[in-house]
């Protein structure tokens, strides 16, 4: 379980997150929603210790994450796929996966082979540079690279960014399947609220750095006020 408690993060004098608290249940998908500038990416970056909060705590089970190094958090089983996929464009598909497998508890060759089995399109492109992949393939690669280390928590930042509706639907289905099959705890940051709510169990809605809703995904999906004022889903 991830527990975020009274988290405040600032960029200089400007607060990006203010007193944010919520919990993510093990094995669930929690969608973090909100408009541009709501603080969604800042939240994920703070969980991974890429940013330091000015106040508050984050726990993975009983382990406090604030103050730990990013690489140590990754080694605790937290895989973070950053906004824009974060694949190394100059590396081949296989090299990207080998990189992900470095903190894998199992033999890295086996771990990479397992991901090729899961994502056959990547197996076909194994010697191809990541820069030459399509947006959807790069997202698949980013997912596969995160999974190759056998994480328990997956932090996904805008996986649908720049993808067509059809590819977005595929990616969301993949995330949903992964969560169910691997018992993965997923924190899914998305601007595409409709797609995210379709697969999420729970939703946290952020508005200018504060939590305005923390409820089951179905409740958020059925709340016209939330959808109108914060998610832009109802005209």
């Amino acid at each position, binding site marked *: 379980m991830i527990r975020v408690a009274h988290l405040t993060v600032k960029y200089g004098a400007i607060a990006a997150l203010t007193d944010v608290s919520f919990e993510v249940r093990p094995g669930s998908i929690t969608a973090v929603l909100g408009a541009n500038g709501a603080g969604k990416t800042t939240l994920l970056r703070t969980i991974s210790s890429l940013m330091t909060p000015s106040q508050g705590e984050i726990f993975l089970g009983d382990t406090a994450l604030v103050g730990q190094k*990013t690489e140590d958090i990754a*080694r605790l089983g937290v895989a973070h796929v*950053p906004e*824009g996929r*974060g694949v190394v464009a*100059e590396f081949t598909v296989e090299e990207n996966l080998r990189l992900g497998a470095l903190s894998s508890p199992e033999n890295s060759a086996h771990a990479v082979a397992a991901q090729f089995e899961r994502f056959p399109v990547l197996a076909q492109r194994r010697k191809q540079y990541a*820069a030459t992949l399509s947006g959807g393939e790069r997202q698949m690669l980013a997912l596969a690279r995160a999974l190759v280390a056998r994480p328990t928590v997956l932090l996904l930042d805008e996986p649908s960014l720049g993808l067509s509706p059809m590819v977005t639907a595929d990616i969301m289905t993949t995330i949903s399947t992964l969560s169910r099959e691997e018992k993965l705890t997923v924190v899914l940051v998305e601007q595409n609220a409709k797609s995210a709510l379709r697969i999420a169990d729970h939703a946290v809605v952020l508005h200018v750095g504060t939590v305005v809703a923390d409820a089951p995904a179905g409740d958020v999906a059925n709340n016209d006020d939330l959808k109108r004022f914060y998610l832009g889903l109802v005209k």
Partner: protein
Amino acid sequence: MGGFLASRFMSDVFNGVANGIIFSLIALSLVVVWQSTNVLNFAQGAMATFATYIGMTQVEHGINIWLCMVISVVVGFIFGGLTERVLIRPLYGKPDINPIVVMVGFLGFLQFLAAAIWGNIPRILPSPFSQVFYTSKGHTIFLSPFVVFQILTAVTVMMIVALVFRFTTLGLKLRAAALAPEVARLLGVRVDRLLTFGWMISSAVGSFTAILVAMQNGSALSPSVMGSVFIFGFIAAAVGGLDSPIGAVVGGLLIGLVEQFTLDYWQANMAPVMALVVLIVVLMIRPRGLFTKNTQRRV
């Protein structure tokens, strides 16, 4: 065949390659540091000279020349790590000009310190191989066993660096740390340690290069022995592209040949001028060097 190998053209090629390989090594050490930390190490030559002094002056105490070379390289390796930890690490995230100013200051500091400890009088280093040119059927071929050793060891060092970077897990981590440090951290790679290691490798290569330079015929170990060599190495790195180890090697060989042909067919003073002309022309055509990809990185 002997006549051709002894020709003026081939002697220039041999000398150009021998010097060029030195420039390549300096360029390679600059590229390794630039790739991993985006710092131009202007003190590279001075650091290498300092490490060489520590190792090679042990010859005067009767220690075997090969062991002295190993000591120099090991000292360079450690020196590189200490420099990154103490001088460079506090500057990450600060304005780009800061590490440049610090390294230029460090260059002066090390040169003065070396002069204060070991004096300014050049010290002739013993060469492990003869520096007498080979002859073939009465023709002098402008290659000596030392030059052959210099070329072979330099190529070996470059190949080891290339193989480590390309084919090992350590190389994969080093490249990831250099290309995408944040992503590497997110994947559990201990980037800080790798940045230090990049400086260590670079500094060790630099020390090895300084030994070769100081052992060359007509050269000797002095606090400023790497001065002009560093300038040519820097030009080579810029010509090849600061992001490209292959560019460093090719740039070094190109600048070595340009220098040699200029001094033989024109005059010695024009050699650095022509090297700079090559640099300007290359940068006008390919602003990031011959071997750096001009495509935007998509991540």
